[in-house]
């Protein structure tokens, strides 16, 4: 008989087909989407930003590696800690001391992910946990924005400040458009904000590249399109309402959307599958909540920017969103 090797046949359970999509590949797609942003940041702020990002990555990946080794798990195959580090790096100021970025990466992964049981189980966005920790720890350093650099090779001396010690003052600091609007009543022209050659976190300055990124993510099905769209739409709706009613200049919806970290947050952080709702209805609610809180904090709060807190707060609400947006039963209940 031709079929003599039936002993080699493997038994398993259905299904025997599978999509090509895989978790490391999704993470890789998101990493790819950040590449243009990193290049633009190098162009605007100089190559120092690469060091900041690398420090955050080292903190994140190093922590995950050490912990997983201790727990005897095979680590790091899923790219997610790498992504957390990159994203954290992208939301830090360009002249942020490296030791702080490293600490932020470590805290983000440790407090934001590992204590929850690792990938997929965390309730809060790890990169944002890291940043929130840094912001509460070093409020001055993290609100010191470098002005766009003179040349590609210009590196702020603040980067290399000694661990545990204060960073030296930097001559070339600049307020962000949001800070100017809030604290000095100075509006930055909307077109300038859209183009992106402005003070701000490493990855957030170019709205156009971020939009390109989200188009790529959606095309690759790496994220649920409702989350970024819902978030931006909510900001547009709430800020327009306030703009029209109160005439507050900084409530201009275009300014609201393109300034600060809103687009970056909406595209890279509101889309984190782990910490946002699993249901499609929930995705809309999450976006609406983030949008509402961002507008509230920016226009009525004490901080110029509220994207990070808005997302963390909505992360905290996500278990409820999931719970109350479970899909309705097929055929209704007839129990």
């Amino acid at each position: 008989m031709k079929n003599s090797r039936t002993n080699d046949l493997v038994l398993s359970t259905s299904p025997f087909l599978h999509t090509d999509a895989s978790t490391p590949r999704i993470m890789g797609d998101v990493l790819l989407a950040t590449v243009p942003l990193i290049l633009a940041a190098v162009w605007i702020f100089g190559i120092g930003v690469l060091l900041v990002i690398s420090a955050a990555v080292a903190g994140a990946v190093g922590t995950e590696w050490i912990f997983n080794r201790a727990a005897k798990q095979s680590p790091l195959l899923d790219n997610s800690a790498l992504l957390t580090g990159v994203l954290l790096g992208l939301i830090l100021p360009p002249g942020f001391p490296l030791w702080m970025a490293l600490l932020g990466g470590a805290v983000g992964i440790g407090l934001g992910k590992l204590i929850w049981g690792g990938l997929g189980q965390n309730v809060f966005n790890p990169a944002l946990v890291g940043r929130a920790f840094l912001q509460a720890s070093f409020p001055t350093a993290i609100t010191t924005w470098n002005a766009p650099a003179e040349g590609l090779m210009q590196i702020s001396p603040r980067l290399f400040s000694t661990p545990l010690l204060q960073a030296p003052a930097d001559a070339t600091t600049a307020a962000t458009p949001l800070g100017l609007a809030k604290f000095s009543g100075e509006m930055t022209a909307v077109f300038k904000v859209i183009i992106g050659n402005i003070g701000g976190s490493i990855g957030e300055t170019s709205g156009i590249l971020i939009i390109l990124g989200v188009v790529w993510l959606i095309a690759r099905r790496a994220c649920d399109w409702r989350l970024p769209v819902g978030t931006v739409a909510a900001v547009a709706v709430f800020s327009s309402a306030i703009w029209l009613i109160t005439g507050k200049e900084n409530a201009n919806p275009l300014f609201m959307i393109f300034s600060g970290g809103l687009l970056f947050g909406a595209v890279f952080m509101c889309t984190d599958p782990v910490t946002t709702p699993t249901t499609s209805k929930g995705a809309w609610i999450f976006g609406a909540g983030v949008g509402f809180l961002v507008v509230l904090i920016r226009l009525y709060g004490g901080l110029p920017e509220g994207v990070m807190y808005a997302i963390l707060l909505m992360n905290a609400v996500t278990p409820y969103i999931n719970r109350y947006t479970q899909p309705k039963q097929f055929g209704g209940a007839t129990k």
Partner: protein
Amino acid sequence: MSNQPSVYEETLKGIWRENPVFVQMLGLCPALAVTNSAINGFAMGAASTFVLVGASFLVSMFRNVIPKQVRITTFIIIIATFVTVADFSLQAFTPALHKELGAFISLIVVNCLILGRQEAFASRNRLPFAVGDAAGMAFGFTLALIMVGGIREILGSGSFFGIPLFGDNFEPWVIMILPPGGFLTLGVLLIIFASIKKMRDKRKLVQIES
């Protein structure tokens, strides 16, 4: 009664084995609220010690004459008395410290550790044991407060009991003296204790097996 531990043992247990904060999770509010520096932790601990030992003393002394139905009320009256005394004294003698601790001195009244000790121990044991237990618990409590306060002060202000440790250029981790720092410090301490215990248990297991 033959196996009853000695006064000495009753005193020691509160320091580590039954530490009120780390093991029993009692008196957490003050353990976090005022512990943004070692000195505050120490002061709060001292005030609590005064109240706990004093109240235990009285409760144990009169344990046979206080009727059951009104015992809790009586305990509270006694505790509140000591707290008021502590509050006034701090206000009179160390006004600056009193300003730091604020309402939390008054809140010692409702500290579950103190009432709990009266109910669980002082009202059932002879005077020396009651005082020993109270002193041990209070000491453990104070130690925990100094520990939490110390860690938060060192990282958050770069000093310990007000003495600068890292020089003028230290970049403080402000979060440590803000509310989140309290929760995080205690959380991390608990992880460390749990890990130590886990390692010890493992070692014990190995010993038993071999």
